[in-house]
């Protein structure tokens, strides 16, 4: 890519912070320590004198740390960036040189993150996102290692175009929500509490493996399993309680780490989320990119009266492997009323500030046919299960009498879920937004900006056709790409789509008075 001459000449290239190599070296200890321990184990097995073993282990650790440090220095030497009047430019690459540039008016989100080590060194990582959806190569620039203050000022400058338009004071963002520690009570209301114990045991085993302690040897596992089978009345409660306790502690810990210091504010034409106890994160979203909000209520959280809010925004990256929360998350799990309040405040600040009468509830229910479409498959599944068991019993006679409790329990559970899924269905059109709600295991209420709808995808399966139902999906550049009004009455659904985006669908509709 060739650099343009105008306006770019006088802006000097700046480098990353000089403490970057040191921070990289410290981070590398996470790899160096296990490597050292591994080396110790191998050397011990070779019958060498202890001094030599110690030297070998120390050498391994040193090698890793020095390699990390050298890599850090190379990165520091080769990475240059500058912010010109038009674009943010980045030159990276130790072996392959890369020159990347993002036009400043394409910058849609700025993500500032600092983990424990980087915070100790006063560093932060800045990720600048554009609204690009398509290209396989990530359309974001990462500046790994700026001074925290520099990162903050870069964040402000990059989004200052918005600030200038809105003519709002730079400081003093208007708070929408802040953390209340009593919300931690919602943290355990997740599936992780039930599987957390098993995950934790797996993690501990892995760590012990590294140290060469094979606690869970095959014979021991077998013995433990036999004991568990032999004493079900003691073992089942103990295992379940233990697993729940570990899961509980894990969930609370995760909540604290993810949401400690949480603050959501409306700042000069941008929406800013700050959170994280150890690893600090700050995500700034240009509100021009906001297309709506999602109020998500996973089943357990819903039963506990809680909900979470996510943003529907253009150009948000996907969560990476080490992130426990989606990038679009605007709130921790919180009381539902509070979540609805936050959601409507975020919506009001969005480009079409029409007040939403009735909030996010008060939706139109869907026809009874949609209920049959949920209850029938649920009943059919249970019936199939029972039939399969009956056949197996006839053929082999191996089905114990107690196993018949399974379909008996499954019947009310499946029916309840099906009815709950039906009750969840609903939609409404407000002056500015299309509201749609669906789901039982994960109920989501979406408020999608009508101006953000880039088309329709309307589907009718064979069974829907017989029941007079239709699924109307509004496609959008933001979030999941499409948001569906599921199993709505065919006429009503088409009418809804026609009204939501005036003029788009109308020419293709036939209206017959009945």
């Amino acid at each position, binding site marked *: 890519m060739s650099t343009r001459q105008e306006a770019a000449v006088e802006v000097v290239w700046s480098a990353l912070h000089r403490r970057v190599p040191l921070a990289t070296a410290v981070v590398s200890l996470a790899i160096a320590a296990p490597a050292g321990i591994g080396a110790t184990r191998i050397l011990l097995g070779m019958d060498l004198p202890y001094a030599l073993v110690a030297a070998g282990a120390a050498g391994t650790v040193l090698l890793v740390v020095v390699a990390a440090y050298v890599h850090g220095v190379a990165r520091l030497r080769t990475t240059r960036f500058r912010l010109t009047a038009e674009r943010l430019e980045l030159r990276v690459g130790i072996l392959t040189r890369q020159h990347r540039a993002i036009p400043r008016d394409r910058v849609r989100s700025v993500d500032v993150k600092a983990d424990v080590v980087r915070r100790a060194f006063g560093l932060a990582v800045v990720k600048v996102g554009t609204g690009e959806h398509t290209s396989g190569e990530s359309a974001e620039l990462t500046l790994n290692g700026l001074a925290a203050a520099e990162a903050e000022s870069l964040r402000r400058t990059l989004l200052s175009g918005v600030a200038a338009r809105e003519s709002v004071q730079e400081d003093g963002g208007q708070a929408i929500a802040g953390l209340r520690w009593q919300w931690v009570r919602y943290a355990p209301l997740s599936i992780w509490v039930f599987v957390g114990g098993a995950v934790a045991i797996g993690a501990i085993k892995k760590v012990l493996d590294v140290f060469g302690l094979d606690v869970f040897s095959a014979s021991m596992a077998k013995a433990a399993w036999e004991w568990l089978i032999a004493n079900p009345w003691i073992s089942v409660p103990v295992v379940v309680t233990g697993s729940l306790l570990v899961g509980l502690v894990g969930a609370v810990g995760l909540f604290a780490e993810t949401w400690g210091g949480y603050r959501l504010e409306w700042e000069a034409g941008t929406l800013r989320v700050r959170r994280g106890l150890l690893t600090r994160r700050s995500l700034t979203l240009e509100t021009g990119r906001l297309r709506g909000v999602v109020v998500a209520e996973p089943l357990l959280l819903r039963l506990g009266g809680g909900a979470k809010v996510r943003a529907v925004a253009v150009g948000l990256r996907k969560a990476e492997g080490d992130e426990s929360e989606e990038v679009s998350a605007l709130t921790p799990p919180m009381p539902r009323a509070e979540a609805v309040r936050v959601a409507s405040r975020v919506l009001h600040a969005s480009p079409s500030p029409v007040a939403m009468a009735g909030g996010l509830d008060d939706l139109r229910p869907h026809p009874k046919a949609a209920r049959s479409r949920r209850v029938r498959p649920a009943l059919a599944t249970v019936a199939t299960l029972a039939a399969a068991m009956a056949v197996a019993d006839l053929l082999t006679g191996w089905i114990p009498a107690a196993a018949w409790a399974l379909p008996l329990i499954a019947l009310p559970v499946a029916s309840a879920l099906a009815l709950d899924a039906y009750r969840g269905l609903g939609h409404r059109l407000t002056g500015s937004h299309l509201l749609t709600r669906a789901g039982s295991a994960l109920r989501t209420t979406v408020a999608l900006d009508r101006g953000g709808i880039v088309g329709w995808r309307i589907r009718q399966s064979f069974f829907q056709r017989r029941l007079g139902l239709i699924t109307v999906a509004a496609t959008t550049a933001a979030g999941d790409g499409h948001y569906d009004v599921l199993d709505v009455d065919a006429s009503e659904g088409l009418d809804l789509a026609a009204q939501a985006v005036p003029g788009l669908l109308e020419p*293709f509709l036939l209206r017959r008075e009945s």
Partner: protein
Amino acid sequence: MAEVTLRPPRNLADPRAIAWWTVQSFLLAVPLAAAAVAGYWFFAPHSPALGFAVAALAAACLLLAALAPRACYRVQRWEITDEAVYVRSGWLTHTWRVAPMSRIQTVDTARGPVQRLFGLADVTVTTASSAGAIKIEALDHELAAELAARLTAITQATPGDAT
């Protein structure tokens, strides 16, 4: 309340599409049927019941390959107005796609090797949504090129980045 339905888009695919789809489906169905018959002939015991089943399977394959393209041709329809692209497809599950001109991001035409023998081309229209592209299949290749040019001209004239 008035009953609201979607009217089908005005245009069908090019009639040559039936021939193209038939060739394509036979390319798949003939080897399948042949394999079944060959398997029966060389490896299986020659029982009348099995023979009948294999013959039925082979016949069904060929029949489906002959009829499916005609069914496809009847359900796949498209229309381009000054404001929007409108496409219908699917046989058991009907799918209608509508995208306004102002939100179209890219327009592509594509021609496969067999398709080229029949002088056909596909037009693919994408919007900023990740919900998938809108595909108009099996148009006369000159018509496809003309449509693509027209759509490109309209979308370039629209300001903004169509999100």
